[in-house]
């Protein structure tokens, strides 16, 4: 049909090569004014330094909690939407997708209104007479986890939804007809069959949470430093290129490990 299709790929490949591959490799192996040795020395130092390790640990802990929260809250929504026969299903689905179109800044800002010292929860506590002043809920781990759960929940819902929608509803009905309870049908039919999709959803949320900047920055403050905020500090405030590159490397490797593990799990699930 097309005589030389390779030619169509050339402009795109050049953009990707010069705008992505070359800069990324140069960043790792020769940041401005430093040598590659310095990046890897810094990387080694980070992996033994208690402060840097605590930042990696906190980033991973947040990611695990947010991933669990997004699956536990997102799967039921996806399941109810995929199996609902109501005519409002489309509207509910749209409501779950719409937040994806809003910037993380706008979505995170809402939590400042709710959790701030003059915020809704603080005012409510004062009004109910539990305290004279609203408690500071911002800049706590809870605030960061809530903010990131809000951010990534739509992603978990649409990914789980697509997986559940592909599970033939006749199988649910067959299980029910054979006497399984609704709960048992869910755990023995729907969840195992949509597991690859759930794993993909978890991976997307985990990768997003590991690299999220806006939410930990606005809701976590200086007490809740994570890899992303640390990377920005190294690049823009202290201008430590070796440290910035090393942090970027840690972040990328974490995302690669999780994606690799999840595609292994998904493949194994598909074979069984």
């Amino acid at each position: 049909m097309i005589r030389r299709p390779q030619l169509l790929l050339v402009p795109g490949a050049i953009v990707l090569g010069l705008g992505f591959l070359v800069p990324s490799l140069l960043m790792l192996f020769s940041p401005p004014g430093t040598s590659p040795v310095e990046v890897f020395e810094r990387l080694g130092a980070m992996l033994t330094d208690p402060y840097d390790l605590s930042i990696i640990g906190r980033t991973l802990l947040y990611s695990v909690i947010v991933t669990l929260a997004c699956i536990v809250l997102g799967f039921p929504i996806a399941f109810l939407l995929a199996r609902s026969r109501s005519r409002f299903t489309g509207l509910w689905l749209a409501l779950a997708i719409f937040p994806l179109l809003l910037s993380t800044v706008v979505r995170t800002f809402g939590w400042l209104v709710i959790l701030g010292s003059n915020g809704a929860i603080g005012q409510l506590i004062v009004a109910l007479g539990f305290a004279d002043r609203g408690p500071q809920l911002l800049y706590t781990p809870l605030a960061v986890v809530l903010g990131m759960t809000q951010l990534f929940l739509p992603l978990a819902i649409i990914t789980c939804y697509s997986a559940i929608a592909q599970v033939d509803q006749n199988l649910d009905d067959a299980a029910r007809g054979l006497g399984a309870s609704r709960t048992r049908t869910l755990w023995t039919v729907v969840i195992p069959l949509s597991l690859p999709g759930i794993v993909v959803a978890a991976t997307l949320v985990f990768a997003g949470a590991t690299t999220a900047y806006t939410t930990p920055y606005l809701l976590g403050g200086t007490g809740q430093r994570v890899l992303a905020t640390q990377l920005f500090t190294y690049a823009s405030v202290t201008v430590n290129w070796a440290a910035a590159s090393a942090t970027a490397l840690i972040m990328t490797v974490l995302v690669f490990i999780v994606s690799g593990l999840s595609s292994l799990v998904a493949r194994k699930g598909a074979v069984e």
Partner: protein
Amino acid sequence: MRSRPVLLGLAVVGYAVMIVPILFVVVSSFTAGKTLSFPPQGFSLQWFEKALSYTPFIDALGSSVLLAIVSTILALGFGVPVALGIARGRMRSAPIIQSFFVSPLIVPELVIGLALYQQVMITLRLDSFVALLIGHIVILLPYTVRVTGATLALSDTSIEDAARGLGAGPWHTFRTVTLPLMRPGLISAALLSFITSFNNVPLSLLLQSREFRTFPVTMLDYVQQSYDPMIAAMSTLIMAGTVVIAIIAERTVGFARIFGGINQ
């Protein structure tokens, strides 16, 4: 539904976490008071007036719209030929080529931003707009390749073969057959790219300059300094604009199909 209390309860919590903060922003933007407190004191549009006359916001809004439009057009310009080559080229290595072009998706955007900051702005001393444009094209390219590619893969190639068989040249066939077939994919990719570019924080965070700052980053800096109802008003205005885009999406290809990748 009635016999699923646990699932329903979790779903209610999920929707509350997603939607309630957004509602609080909208409601508090209409306050007549001077601070961001809840419940809002009285009703007024004063913060909308202030937001619309605050030049840093309006300038940044212009910059972001410009960047989003230019990078969307360029990402389509580079991505659509790639999608065509993959879908119609009958190349054995098509899956590998596809994964090469979507590879920026698996690298954290902040890392791509850092790489471009170091190499394009520091080492090559290029302008921040150029660096931002490169970065945005790189992160949009996977979407344009994948989304237009998906439309092409679903379309029937025998129509194109028929056109060629009836004597139409390759360019004529492309213009009268392939392009109309690709239309839903092009609209989806364009809307998705525009929204993704407009909202991007990680790239713009590192690649901004005093002369060129994008809207989300300007808002982020403002919120970090002080959060007053003006930010709420600005957010509400942006949401209204986003609803317009959502309606366009629904009227053309389908909202859930474009932004959720869901075919109902």
